[in-house]
């Protein structure tokens, strides 16, 4: 539990760099996440949460600073290497599910395996079946996403994010557009995988209720971290 998965030091991000409208949205962020951590990132809209998550998820590059992914400097690596790192180390869950509508639920879960191995195999199917069963979707495996409710789609997305057993799952408001009941279910699932598989999670959320149930809360305001503490403490002070 003490190997750092990610270490960000003095990360800065400027959009439209070199133009008169250049805006620095992150002003020297320092974060380290250890294996098996369950942390959340809170903050008001426009505070840079999504940018930070995209940087950690290797979807964007920082303007300055150093980023070590599992001890390896990754921000200068070429696009293919960063893509490979995404496939093998990271999992994504987005607010609007982002399942591929052309594939059934189980195929969506099998896609990362297909990307890694170049073919759908029996092991992929068995593994995907296990994952979907564990998120309570044993009966909906062969349905296309548009026949699933929002909560069910998000559970498929979680199963997909976990299908290659990543070290870290990045979730951008995973319960943002779900009702309270579904949100609790989805959150409980992530919590459960965190405990059983030891997968680290970093959640962006607006929901103080959920933030309170994380192990650690990082608060971002105007592009700087204003607090980083065990959750109970943070949530009594701030609720985004």
């Amino acid at each position, binding site marked *: 539990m003490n190997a750092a998965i990610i270490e960000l030091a003095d990360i800065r991000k400027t959009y439209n760099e070199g133009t008169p409208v250049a805006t620095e949205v992150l002003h020297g962020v320092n974060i380290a996440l250890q294996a098996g951590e369950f942390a959340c990132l809170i903050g008001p809209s426009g505070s840079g949460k999504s940018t930070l998550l995209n940087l950690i998820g290797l*979807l*964007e590059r920082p303007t300055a600073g150093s980023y070590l992914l599992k001890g390896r400097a990754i921000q200068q690596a070429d696009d293919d290497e960063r893509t*490979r790192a995404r496939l093998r180390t990271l999992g994504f869950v987005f607010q609007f599910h*982002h399942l*591929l509508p*052309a*594939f059934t639920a189980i195929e969506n879960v099998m896609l*990362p395996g297909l*990307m890694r191995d*170049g073919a759908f195999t029996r092991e992929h199917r068995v593994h995907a079946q296990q994952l979907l069963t564990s998120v309570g979707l044993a009966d909906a495996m062969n349905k296309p996403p548009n026949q699933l409710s929002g909560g069910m789609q998000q559970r498929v997305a979680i199963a997909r994010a976990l299908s290659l057993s990543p070290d870290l799952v990045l979730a951008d408001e995973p319960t943002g557009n779900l009702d309270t009941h579904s949100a609790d279910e989805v959150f409980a699932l992530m919590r459960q995988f965190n405990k059983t598989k030891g997968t680290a999670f970093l959640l962006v959320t607006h929901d103080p209720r959920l933030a309170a149930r994380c192990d650690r809360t990082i608060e971002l305001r105007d592009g700087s971290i204003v607090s980083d503490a065990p959750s109970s403490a943070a949530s009594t002070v701030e609720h985004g």
Partner: protein
Amino acid sequence: MGFEWSVALRFLREGGMQTLLIVAGTTIGIAVIVFITGFLGDLQRDLIKRTLGVQAHIVVRPAEEVARPLRDAPAAVTQIPQIQTRAQRLRSVEQWQSLVPVLADTPGIRAVSPVAAGPGIIARGDASKTVTITGIILAPFVAVTRLNEKIVAGDLRVDPGDVLMGVDLARDLGVGIGDKVRLSTPTSPGYAYQVRGIYNLGARNLNRAGVYVGLATAQALHALPGGVSSIELAVDDLFGAPKLASRLGHAMPHEVESWTQANPQLLAALSNQTIMTLLVRFFLALVVAIGVSSVLVVAVVQKTKEIGILRAMGASRGRILRVFLLQGALIGASSAVLGSLCGYALTSVMSGILRASDGTRIFVARLEPDLYFYTFIVAAMLGVVAAAMPARRASKLDPAMAIRI
């Protein structure tokens, strides 16, 4: 490629009506290309056959006699001789009897027919016409010219004393089968011959131009004892005739002329036709490619979010590129299969509609595996080329941006 295949196929299936429409459009384009390509050769062969009438594909005749200056000038003196072109006598092809079997054994030559032809006059009573009197050996001559298909009255025979002529000449002279005509030449006062057969070559001037007699008869009339004025050849590949002719020309001391040299205006018309159809096919292919390209451009925009999520999940730029290139190839290849079927159907229908003046079919529908194979390969490549721009655009999408949409 498993990933690329799965995603490309699903994207196309998800496209639904969009995919059906572009495949339909591409199929029609390819069907017309296959149709034009398939029947152009037949059409041109038919045209050549009808225009040439009984002309051979290649003619071997004695080299022209040339006049030379009588003395060689010293090196320092520029000589300005006046040389008149020699009048060409009717001469025999030297060593023709040993040449015929050599030609018959040459690959690409279907039939070899030695003939003795020269000018003459055909007369009946007061009426007379100048004609070419051609002496033939029946079997090889028929093999070269298919004269047997053109006989409309009487028999195809050239026994001693027989003459064959065209319908228009027979009408001009007012003769029918069994009537006598007189053939004479500058070198022979001539004799009476019996009209044995009448043919129709499909063109008046050809039907008036000549008469056919036995080889020995013509040799006597033209004072060419034992000689022939030319050797006529039929080849397997009509369009390869010029090449074969020039090869033969280099190998023997005779003049060898192909149908293209004898009929330059026909060749010009044919090559213009070929260029026109090439242009039509090229622009059809271009339209098809632009269609595929525009549909894929739209598909990339529609799938921006999916491309973003695939990139976030760990699909490299190269993979996204290949997904869209593959979609282009699949559209091209499937349209090639359907287009070949439709092209064949179109050829079948049109061969019944487009007919020659005498009502015979100009071309028949044939299955052409080679044509379909090349169509498949070219269409798939065309699809890939058409997909290049949209695929590049898809692969360059910024995943962070694409997901936010």
